[in-house]
């Protein structure tokens, strides 16, 4: 039951994040919204892992490992986007 609750929370986060990603005009807020979608998706993975608990483990380690990889990738994406934003909001660079 509690697992399901987290699953539904994940689904809601995906929806909220997608909405923000679509309608927010500024890029920084879009980036935040993307991270919300990411959090929702990862939470869904966590729920899947928890549901698949077996063999004495509290969760299936494969989706957990995938989430760890996914979080790092999402961070790299955020860093790249942040750099672009910083360049764009800074003064015009002489070539």
């Amino acid at each position: 039951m509690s697992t399901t609750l987290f699953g539904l929370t994940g689904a809601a986060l995906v929806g909220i994040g997608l909405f923000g990603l679509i309608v927010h005009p500024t890029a920084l807020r879009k980036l935040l919204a993307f991270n919300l979608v990411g959090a929702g998706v990862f939470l869904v993975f966590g729920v899947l892992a928890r549901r698949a608990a077996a063999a004495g483990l509290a969760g299936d380690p494969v989706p957990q490992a995938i989430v760890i990889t996914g979080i790092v990738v999402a961070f790299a994406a955020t860093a790249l986007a942040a750099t672009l934003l910083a360049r764009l909001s800074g003064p015009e660079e002489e070539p």
Partner: protein
Amino acid sequence: MTVSLLPVWAVLTPVLGLCALLLCERWMRPERVAAPFVGLSLYLSLSMTYEVMTSQAPLVYALGGWLPPLGLTLRADGVGVLLMALTALVMTGVAICAWTPPGDATARSRFSFWALLLALWSALNLAFTAQDLFNFFVALEMLSFAAVALVALDGTRGALIAALRYLLFALAGSILYLLGVGLIYGRYAVLDLAGLREIAQPDTVTLAALALMTAGLMAKTALFPLHLWLPPAHAGAPAPASAVLSALVVKAPFLIILRLWVDLLPLPAAAPQQIMAGLGAAAILVCSVIALRQQRLKLMIAYSTLAQVGYLFLMFPLMPGPAPWQDIGWTGGLLQLASHGFAKAAMFLAAGLIYEALGHDRVAELGGLARRQPVTLAAFAIAGLSLMGLPPSGGFIAKLLLLTAAVETGAWWIAAVILAGGILAAFYVFRALGHALADGDPPMAPVALYRQGAVLALALCALALGFVPLRPFALLAIGRPLEALEAMP
């Protein structure tokens, strides 16, 4: 199937090149460091193609000896080696063309270009050989990050904005894809395509996961109407980068869609395929018309890419058989993919040389080009031939096969769209050619002949694909249907 380490090295050689670039940054010129890795990767890809063609079996490797569903495999089948060979040849052509950097190149842009080029190569080879849904995700992210940085390489405001839009939209696509992967795992606890093929059912969860992955990948491949990011990104990147982006990078997500729909769960022909073909048709018609109205050569070529991506999506309803890889629609679509790869790479590189020579790429002011850069222009024209789908070219054979498939399946509207797209493409190519052949004697910077030759060679590759026999091409069926790896022999 043959157990072979070649696919692993094909993925890792460019990574080693990237590491070498980082290690040697301070004392060697980046192109010198990258060159051996470019050569080695080319050799690996071509020898894999040779291996697969001679043995008629895919090359497979289970990493660490761990079999799916726990472990990961890399597998180069017929389609995989075709695309890897395409990638290798295009990359080599681009590398030759970028060997002498343009005059305004800086240490930053040169180092970054070569490093990102190798990164892209690794990502593409991974996308073409991976068998695991999450492995695809990693490949796509490597691809997107490298591609975004390439788009922004010139550092102009326009390029930066284009890169940002590209990145954010690609991320939206990836996250939807990842959600689909999650649902598949929750349903089957398997992410390996061959394993899934044995157990997957067309039930609600599986289909929803497929829809999520497909929609996410469509955003990444810039299928109309999800194309907002592509024109400014491909037109704003430095020309060699545009060539790789347009010719190769948008193909990787498409190939994954194709594999999902063919390898994972063979669906009976129905509404979804028609939707995909419908979007493809809209892409062809709308984007060709817009290409026709562009004032800048690179934007025209970018819109042409959108239209040509549309052709790829026409193939979904055109392979209705139980073994789609035996249908001519399959051969036609994949030939379209390959010939567009060569032709578009040649076209963007030609546009780049034209830009270098003239200092601009305004279509209306290309006069005098024919006299001063005949080789570049010939390459542009030959590539254009393939885009128009005129003989003798890979584009023609591809169009012919798709057309035949459309007639055979009674999809008359698809036949009409293919023909109309060819006419529109001819108009935009001839428009540019007509201006280039006009009188004029603008000041022009010299461009080394070997670079023009590399572009011509790529265009001739597109031409050579026109001599593929007009029938289901045996190479493209090697390794299908997927078989689960039972044990490491």
